[in-house]
């Protein structure tokens, strides 16, 4: 049933390649509700992508929220690879959920166009916490395994993986407390209901007086908080982050892929775009094409490994 449809789609794509792409609106599917971080990014990218595609092109954002983004990711993976359906892609979430439940797509179901945002995870405590450094926190966790509670937003996401990798690297044992969403976890940290927590740097940025960021789990210090050391500097080689990019269904023809990658690269180089993203507090980590695909498959590997070692459900 699917094969003739795919063949038809391919045939259409071939003809479409001759016509001027795009000759109808391009849809960007967002797997989350309007107003969230991913949605805001999608709308910003869409606005500049319209300019780059030129010739009155129209790029429309379509929100298909549900099941932690899964409904939207599935929609993109199953769409015709004609360049008219793109989607936002969140790593590691989009691929992590293919491990812990049945999903109709995997890492090979997409054409990786470009990643825009990379927000590194942090280890964070309340400003009133007795722990001044990451080492103090880890010493306490080693002294009484499990006594240090670590708040995070839901299992099977970047927070959970960050906590897991931190435990592996340090040999300390934390009690993981998965809240519903980062804001609940953050409130619990601020209220002292958990000893520490992990969330992305962006999620800490509005609360400089209430939170103390002990370390950022990235290769390099963040330009947003150059005062915060990386975990690597402190002797724990851990990198984890939340990435947001743009993908298309697998099987997108080369001409359109190149066209879109070039357009998205041009979007990234636009100073207005950079300014807008900075204003939204979105740390840009632009990766195009194969670099992005490689990151995706690396993230897929991390999720698969953690799922195999310590399945969370």
């Amino acid at each position: 049933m699917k094969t003739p449809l795919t063949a038809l789609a391919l045939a259409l794509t071939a003809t479409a390649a001759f016509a001027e792409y795009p000759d109808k609106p391009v849809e960007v599917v967002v797997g989350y509700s309007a107003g969230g971080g991913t949605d805001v990014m999608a709308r910003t990218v869409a606005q500049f992508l319209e300019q780059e595609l030129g010739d009155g092109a129209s790029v429309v954002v379509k929100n298909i929220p549900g099941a932690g983004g899964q409904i939207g990711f599935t929609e993109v993976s199953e769409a015709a690879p004609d360049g008219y359906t793109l989607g936002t892609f969140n790593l590691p979430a989009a691929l992590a959920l293919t491990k812990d439940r049945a999903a109709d797509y995997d890492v090979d179901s997409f054409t990786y166009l470009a990643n825009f945002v990379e927000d590194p995870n942090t280890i964070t405590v309340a400003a009133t916490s007795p722990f001044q450094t990451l080492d103090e926190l880890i010493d306490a966790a080693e002294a009484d395994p499990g006594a240090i509670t670590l708040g995070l937003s839901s299992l099977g996401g970047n927070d959970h993986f960050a906590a897991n990798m931190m435990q592996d690297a340090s040999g300390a044992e934390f009690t993981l407390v998965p809240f519903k969403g980062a804001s609940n976890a953050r409130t619990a940290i601020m209220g002292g209901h958990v000893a520490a927590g992990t969330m992305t740097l962006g999620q800490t940025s509005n609360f400089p007086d209430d939170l103390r960021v002990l370390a950022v789990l990235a290769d390099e210090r963040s330009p947003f908080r150059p005062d915060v050391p990386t975990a690597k500097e402190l002797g724990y080689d851990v990198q984890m982050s939340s990435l947001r990019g743009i993908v298309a269904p697998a099987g997108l023809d080369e001409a359109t892929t190149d066209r879109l990658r070039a357009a998205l690269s041009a979007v990234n180089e636009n100073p207005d775009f950079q300014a807008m993203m900075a204003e939204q507090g979105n740390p840009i980590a632009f990766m195009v094409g194969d670099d992005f695909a490689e990151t995706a498959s690396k993230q897929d590997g991390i999720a698969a490994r953690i799922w195999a070692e310590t399945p969370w459900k």
Partner: protein
Amino acid sequence: MYSDLLHALPDVFAWTNFAAVVIGVIAGIVVGAMPGLSATMAISVLVPFTFGLEPLVALGLMAGIYNGAMYGGAIPAVLLRIPGTPAAVATTFDGYPMAQKGEGGFALQVAVVSSSIGGIASAFALMLLAPPLSKVTLLFGPSEVFWVAVFGLASIIFLLGGNPIKGLISACFGVFVSVIGSDPIYGNDRFTFGQLEMLDGINIVILLVGLYALPPVIDLLETPLKTDGVNSSKLGTEPIWKALPRMNYWKTWLRGSFLGIWIGILPGAGGSMAAFMSYNEARRTSKHPETWGEGEPEGVAAAEVANNADTASALIPALTLGIPGTAVAAVMLGGLLVHGLQPGPMLFRDNPDIVFGFMWQFLFGAILLVLLGGSLATNSFARLLNLPRPLLGSVIIVLMLIGVYSIHGRMFDVYLMLGFGAIGWVMDRLKFPLPPVVLGLILGGFAEENLRLALRIGRGDPMVLFQNTTSLILVALTAAVVVGPTLKKRFIDSRKKA
């Protein structure tokens, strides 16, 4: 703490935001005046449509509707002895006798002025109490929130009045619905039947629209209302500024406001209970209790001031802790969430202009009530009762379908809503109360999630639930709510015997 309050004021007067309140009040009076249609229903049908609006426009509409509907319910209560909303039952006691005596116009004027006073008092309570409360909510960790949820569930079952067993069954149904979807800790699927659409659980707005809007619409279409009795020319209306000096119910207004505000803050009880308590207290302390029930304007004042005084105050726990005390507050929370506004301490910090603007809108909604409901249009609102009901019913059904579809853009939700509507209709017929279902869904979810988080923090030791004063106070309050009514009954029984 209160400087944000003043800061939010200019936005409220942006013409779109102000117009939203005006339209909301008028729509609220209309909805409240239609017997069977409640504020909860109107707001839940509205919520999906507010998605594309600016937050303050959407919230202004809601605040206006809530205030308007609480008064609107008095119109058929006075003219036909049919309470337009459940909260207006106590208004019929003296309102209808007044109408029979040809004082219907005055009764409605007393109702609108009292409603407005109650609403103003409530808005002030919200403005004064919510900001300091939002500061202490950081003290509420998982174990405290768990107890708040348990307290809320206990109060809704035992304080709602009527049959506690039926209340319990309704609440259990709500709690069951809260279990649907992926579990809050591990994400295991529960009762989803493999449907991705069910993985996030049941959206509160879908449940509310089905439960609160479908049964009354079916009723509306089933029972043609005889409205021959309404002859608005015989209302005996005089201009409201002439009627005002005849209203001297300051004690009743004050007492009713306090009762309404307090009952609004408590989870579970709502406008109807506030109105009854205020009416009884006012009669008990009256110098001439024998005239009550025979057309005593003060009785109308007592009922109407209290059922409006619980409106804004019901939002105090909702905005600060995210735990709604009444079904209407639950719908409003749904409205906030639609706009990405997460209730809790961060709401006041991240979106002060919106949350404080919303409070102002409550205040202006209450003030506008006098202008719109009182002086201009009492007569025209009374004529509303003659609207063709099949037309009205079909319009509401269409709005429900479009609204629910637009939440996620999928038909699945529409079928889900119709399913809940059918359940709601059966429950309504069997006289099962509906608010416990809604609060069971919300509070049940809170209770489960926070119990499990608390136990995880305590590494499995249940004593973590009793480790601090806030938790212990909440445990004591819950015990009082559960045991209190039984003890009171025993006490009364033993006195009867003696």
